[in-house]
């Protein structure tokens, strides 16, 4: 990472330290905010955050690795998550996932080489009454089918 990028992250981390009480209880909101801005939490920034909160960097990494929605590696510009719990599965989510896998040539958990798309499976969004369901960059889509899902994903920038 070059110095300009490092500076950006350093500045943002110090903003976050002002926004939150700078102690360990703020670790998750800090990581969430950081990720929202930079997409993932790189090693350099993990160390910055650890230093500011006075904890070991391994602790920060360990927390990131625990939570499915936190990333320590680059992800795509868009994150598409499809529910794979049984209600959605029986309503056709598997076929939708298969179509995404085929169309974009990625497996769940992977990112397309052009960095446009990360695709993931999720266990129940709590939208089972509007199943199958999908989440794109935090926005929810209900009662999707193969065609509508692919259309939504293709239109992403």
């Amino acid at each position, binding site marked *: 990472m070059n110095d300009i990028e490092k500076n950006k992250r350093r500045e943002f981390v110090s903003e976050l330290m002002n926004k939150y009480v700078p102690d360990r209880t*703020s670790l998750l909101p800090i990581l*969430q905010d950081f990720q929202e801005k930079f997409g993932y939490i790189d090693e350099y920034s993990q160390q910055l955050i650890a230093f500011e909160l006075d904890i070991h960097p391994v602790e920060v990494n360990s927390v990131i690795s625990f*939570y*499915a*929605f936190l990333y320590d590696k680059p992800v795509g510009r868009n994150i598409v998550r499809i529910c794979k719990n*049984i209600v959605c599965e029986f309503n056709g989510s598997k076929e939708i996932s298969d179509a995404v896998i085929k169309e974009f040539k990625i497996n769940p958990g992977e990112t397309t080489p052009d960095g446009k798309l990360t695709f993931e499976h999720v266990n*129940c969004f*709590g939208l089972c009454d509007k199943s199958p369901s999908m989440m794109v960059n*935090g926005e929810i889509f209900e009662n999707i089918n193969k065609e509508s899902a692919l259309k939504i994903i293709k239109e992403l920038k």
Partner: protein
Amino acid sequence: MNKLFERKNRTGPVLFSEYEKGSAVKKALLTDRDDILLEIRESGLRGRGGAGFPVSVKWMLTAAANSPQKFVICNADEGEPGTFKDRVLLSEYPELVLEGMIIAGYTVGARKGIIYLRAEYSYIKDFLQSKIEEMRSDGNLGKNICGRKDFDFDISIRLGSGAYVCGEETALIESLEGHRGEPRNRPPFPVNTGYLGFPTVVNNVETLASVPHIINKGGEWYHKFGTGKSSGSKLFSVSGDCRYPGVYELQWGITIKELLDLCGAENTKAVQIGGASGICIPESEFSRQISFEDASTGGSVMVFNKNRKMIDVLQNFMEFFTEESCGQCTPCRIGNVKLLEGVNMIRNNEYSLEYIEKLKELGETMKIASKCGLGQTSPNPFISILNNFKDEIFGMN
């Protein structure tokens, strides 16, 4: 307003009945704390997150604890597959949830409330925040609530980051403290040693939302609904093979058959009650009641018709548990993998019935030996589906 947050035309005996915003907080703050505890005790209200612990006992223990700080946590992690009733409460009846938290805070002597909202519901966060601010400007939240000089209470929202186990109350607290969401040993319970070591009430969204109605109409009124040991109403999240999936507010004690009729289910083979960690009920038992005494649920009711294969259901659930086990304790970390392997053996017709029986025994061991509720309940579908659908599953190849 965003149509997600518009209140639908819902009816029900308690939660979906008429409610005047702010009325319960006003009334509660004029009531003695001990009288609120008695009222809650009389209502018989039990936790709606799944375990059914009596609310009055939890609150009494927290109220009795001598501590400079206490907390009220609203568990909005709603991760049990097939559950979405808390989503409806948070997005259509937020005032009930927030007021329930305030009343809990007043009763136990807490000044801070935290809503732990699952990451999958992050789209509700701004809406909830706006409701919190509305209450603050109405004087129902913040300093000197309703003009009472001795009562301050405020609520903040924290987001989860995608971990089912964080719905377990001690894992939730770990997560709030900035750690991996790994459950703690219990005891000590959060009522003594909770968030940051202080006495803490952790209650489910629906539990808290029931409180304002109990305050307004009384414990005796509430107790009239439901059955003796399961008093009041319950929200059921009904999904799967039925014409009208959705959230229903009904009385405890309704039979599975009655619920199936209501939601327009036909040709039903099985009903999974209580989510992935619940039990799977075959047609021959549809006369069973949904209640703490019989078939208990935190809200999830998944309907499967006769075209569905039960081995698919079981495989889906066991994959879920192997992914969501936090890995701290061996029975759960290894046990779920072994049970899933067993499911795949059955699929591939590479099993002996003797080994499957061994796996069921392993499941029984997991129920006893696992550290938290995840591993203690994850064998439920394995055992109940294999027992109740023997013919279909073992005769299938």
